[in-house]
């Protein structure tokens, strides 16, 4: 990587030259824009980067007519950058191959808050679409001025503005503005295109990052190199709450390449000349730690969740006491019900399990700091880093480098603190990569969960009461707030905590973790409570297991509860699970996905576990699970499973998914995301569980934390996309994971009559449930 990128405060003028270097990844897909062509001058930088209300903060057009989108959205390996470029190209009326992208860089791109998997397109496309529409409008006005005709007489195609009926009268965007700034505010006064006119949005364009990724030329965060860079590795405590007693530096005196052993409170690292030297030095460095063994016994975790005091300060005012929905008198409705049932659903901690361990490079110099890292929150992480170092925001620059797929908050933000501490200690740029065990042992996990549910049916099999009580820790331990707040804090990062940082982190956890816990069915009286346990980390909180957001945050657990229980109610009513659901649904879009999925899968109505003519060890069954409502994506999926009653093994053979995410920007991208979400959901549902002893997480590698491999992938995932061009694009990345666990449990019930209420559905769990039932 070029040394110039190492200067903390490059103007945008320089950037386009540097871009070619970052963009070696595109070498097979065509030249980068701007090489040798004049680019506009840098926009003004506010505390959160280029101002969002300046058109030039978003779009720059060079003399050859290439438009560069400056986005604060972090690409998480889902194709969101490609989709955002589709949106810009569409509104600008340029060819897709003339749309280029500058990834997040706090000196060059506007703040676009948190890029969580499902929100990237739904939410982040809005200002981009608006800016592009206004840029087109301005360009057309310039052409109108040039040709002295009213704007209505002009048409734009592929970045060329022509006068209708006057062949030869045309001018390109490059000629109109190339290399100059618009110097306009984004006003919101221009209306973006009507979706019926879309030519690029809604089509399966090829992702811009794939060519570089198949040739190996793409620069991941793990591949960033800067001149003079040293290599670091960290040494984590062997118990979550342990503190350093002593470091024996002589234990690595015989090793080559050691530059320094660094300690800041309980954050320990080694800096070496070469990477393999740092790995060896970290492995051999003798550190004595205090004893710590305050984790609960793993088998008691769900009981312990019930005993942790509610974290009242984190519950938003609109949900006093954590009550999410209350309607009527559940107690008397249950007493009066013809039939009442109850169930408890439990799940373990889950790992994000990025394939590439987190990695960052930091260069801490007296005159400024540069950081290269993956993250979902470029500006928040920058501010967190600045606060951690005691510097002003504008002394720190964060350059986003894409990591391996993250599915939520992995160690990407944390490793930045490691890199800052090590770089500061040696006065040189230092690259720190976590080892596999650092990642699996210290990233954030999906919280373990327990939920009690009770429900009642009247004599006609209609639901008259629904009560749920859920317990779980926060889904938020990010360094940045969501909009409209801005700013970052290092306090939730476990590495900052190790380094002795005590100011608390941000607290926005309730909404995410309670998401979708209220039934989207008509249920009569209801009482839905989320007992919020607040943030938790290896170093803080009542149960020292670190929690953070993972694909869907609380939704997969909440939908597991709702969709399992609705199925249990259907069984209690002796009804077909689909008909029973439809009877209690009112949202037309949700009903539409249910119908689409059942038609596609050829669903024949009958109560679950009523058709079984099978009597060998191998049983087959089908189950439905859905969710959706409000502005969210609707999804209905049908799972077909095969269960070996003897071995307990469950195999998902086929999944049929009907999916409505509003406007579809890139159908191929949507299909990929759905498929990935379903398969990851199956993996989490069938085999994943973070294990721990009294001191620490013990599932530290892929052997102790197995995830799905090819043999367990369903034979078929059949996807029906319902496009709603009239509606805004809603989330994609998370939806298809949310209903997987219930779908499998419902299908297993159909196959065997055994109800699985505790994740993961391992062969042992199935056999336990079978034995309990017998």
């Amino acid at each position, binding site marked *: 990587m070029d040394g110039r990128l190492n200067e903390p405060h490059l103007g945008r003028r320089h950037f386009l030259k540097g871009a070619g270097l970052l963009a070696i990844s595109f070498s097979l897909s065509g030249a980068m824009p701007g090489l040798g062509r004049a680019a506009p001058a840098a926009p003004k930088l506010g505390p959160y980067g280029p101002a969002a209300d300046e058109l030039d903060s978003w779009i720059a057009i060079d003399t050859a007519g290439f438009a560069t989108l400056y986005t604060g959205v972090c690409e998480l390996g889902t194709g969101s950058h490609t989709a955002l470029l589709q949106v810009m190209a569409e509104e600008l009326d340029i060819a897709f191959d003339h749309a280029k992208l500058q990834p997040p860089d706090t000196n060059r791109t506007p703040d676009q808050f948190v890029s969580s998997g499902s929100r990237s397109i739904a939410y982040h496309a809005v200002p981009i679409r608006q800016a592009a529409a206004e840029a087109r409008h301005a360009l057309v006005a310039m052409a109108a001025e040039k040709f002295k005709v009213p704007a209505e007489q002009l048409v734009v195609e592929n970045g060329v503005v022509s006068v209708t009926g006057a062949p030869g009268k045309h001018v390109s965007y490059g000629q109109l503005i190339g290399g100059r700034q618009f110097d306009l505010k984004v006003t919101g006064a221009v209306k973006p295109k009507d979706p019926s006119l879309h030519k690029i949005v809604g089509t399966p364009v090829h992702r811009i990052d794939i060519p570089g990724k198949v*040739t*190996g030329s793409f620069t991941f965060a793990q591949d960033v190199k800067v001149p003079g860079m040293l290599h670091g590795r960290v040494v984590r405590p062997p118990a979550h709450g342990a503190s350093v007693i002593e470091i024996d530096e002589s234990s690595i005196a015989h090793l080559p390449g050691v530059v320094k052993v660094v300690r800041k409170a309980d954050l320990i690292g080694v800096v070496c000349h070469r990477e393999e030297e740092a790995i060896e030095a970290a492995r051999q460095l003798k550190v004595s730690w205090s004893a710590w063994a305050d984790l609960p016994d793993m088998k008691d975790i769900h009981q312990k969740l019930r005993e942790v005091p509610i974290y009242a300060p984190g519950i938003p005012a609109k949900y006093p006491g954590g009550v999410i929905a209350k309607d009527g008198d559940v107690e008397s409705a249950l007493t009066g019900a013809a039939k009442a049932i109850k169930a408890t659903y439990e799940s373990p901690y889950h790992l994000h399990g990025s*394939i590439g361990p987190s990695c960052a490079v930091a260069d801490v110099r007296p005159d400024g700091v540069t950081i290269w890292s993956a993250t979902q929150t470029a500006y928040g992480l920058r501010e967190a880093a600045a606060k951690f170092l005691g510097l002003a925001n504008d002394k720190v620059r964060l350059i986003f480098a894409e990591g391996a797929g993250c599915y939520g908050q992995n160690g990407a933000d944390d490793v930045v603190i490691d890199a800052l501490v090590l770089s500061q200690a040696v006065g040189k740029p230092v690259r720190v990569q976590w080892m596999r065990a650092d990642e699996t042992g210290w990233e954030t996990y999906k919280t373990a969960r327990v939920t009690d549910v009770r429900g009642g049916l009247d004599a006609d099999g209609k639901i008259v009461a629904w009560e749920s009580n859920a317990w779980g820790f926060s889904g938020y331990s990010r360094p940045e707030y969501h909009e409209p707040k801005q700013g970052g804090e290092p306090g939730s990062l476990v590495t900052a905590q190790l380094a002795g940082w005590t100011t608390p982190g941000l607290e926005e956890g309730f909404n995410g973790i309670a998401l979708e816990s209220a039934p989207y069915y008509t249920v009569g009286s209801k009482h839905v409570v989320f007992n919020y346990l607040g943030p938790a980390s290896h170093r803080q909180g009542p149960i020292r297991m670190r929690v953070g957001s993972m694909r869907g945050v609380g939704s997969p657990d909440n939908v597991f509860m709702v969709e399992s229980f609705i199925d249990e109610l259907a069984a209690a009513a002796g009804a077909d699970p689909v008909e029973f659901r439809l009877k209690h649904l009112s949202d037309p879009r949700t009903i539409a996905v249910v119908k689409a999925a059942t038609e596609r899968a050829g669903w024949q109505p009958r109560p679950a576990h009523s058709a079984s003519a099978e009597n060998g060890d191998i049983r087959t069954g089908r189950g439905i699970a859905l969710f959706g409502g409000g502005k969210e994506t609707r999804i209905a999926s049908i799972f077909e499973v095969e269960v070996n009653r003897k071995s307990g093994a469950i195999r998902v053979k086929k999944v049929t998914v009907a999916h409505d995410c509003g406007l579809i920007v890139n159908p191929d991208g949507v299909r990929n995301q759905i498929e990935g979400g379903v398969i*990851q959901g199956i993996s989490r549902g069938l085999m994943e569980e973070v294990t721990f002893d009294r001191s620490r997480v013990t599932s530290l590698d892929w052997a102790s934390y197995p995830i799905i491999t090819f043999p367990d992938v369903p034979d078929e995932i059949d996807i029906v996309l319902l496009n709603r061009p009239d509606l805004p694009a809603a989330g994609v990345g998370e939806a298809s994971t949310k209903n997987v666990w219930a779908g499998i449990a419902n299908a297993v019930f159909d196959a065997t009559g055994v109800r699985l209420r505790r994740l993961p559905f391992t062969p042992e769990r199935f056999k336990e449930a079978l034995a309990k039932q017998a």
Partner: protein
Amino acid sequence: MTSVAVGDETAMRRIGVTVNGTLQAGEVSVRLTLADFLRQDLKLTGTHLGCEHGVCGACTILLDGRAVRACLLLAVQVDGHSVTTVEGLAPSATVLHPLQEAFCAHHGLQCGFCTPGMLTTLVEFLKDCPDPSAEEVRVAISGNICRCTGYDSIVEATLSAAANMRDGS
């Protein structure tokens, strides 16, 4: 430099390896893994490290045409041999390998971190098995983990590449 003292952390040895068709010669530490040699010394960062203990498959390269894990091999072990990394799969700077083409056309990846290992594993596989079934493709890559789970698109891409390669030969 013929013998290396056991436990000597600083011993160096001279090696010569053909990497993507070019002979690379130099002194390396006897403890240096092939993956670190490729990534650090040759700047071939397309070979990714996911677990550094042989489980995930991200670091798979071709050693004399056979798919092996670069994190489990030492650089000195490949002295005199030929290594192909993901950077060496394309026949030229402007033409992709049919598998690379197919991964582009079929979205055979999401984040792409596992992709180099998938590609090298599949290049070897398609040589041995030019006309595979979907099931055979699944088995062939069952040792490579993809957390984004673009598994189905990988199978699709592989079948399409295999067909193109058969047509082309």
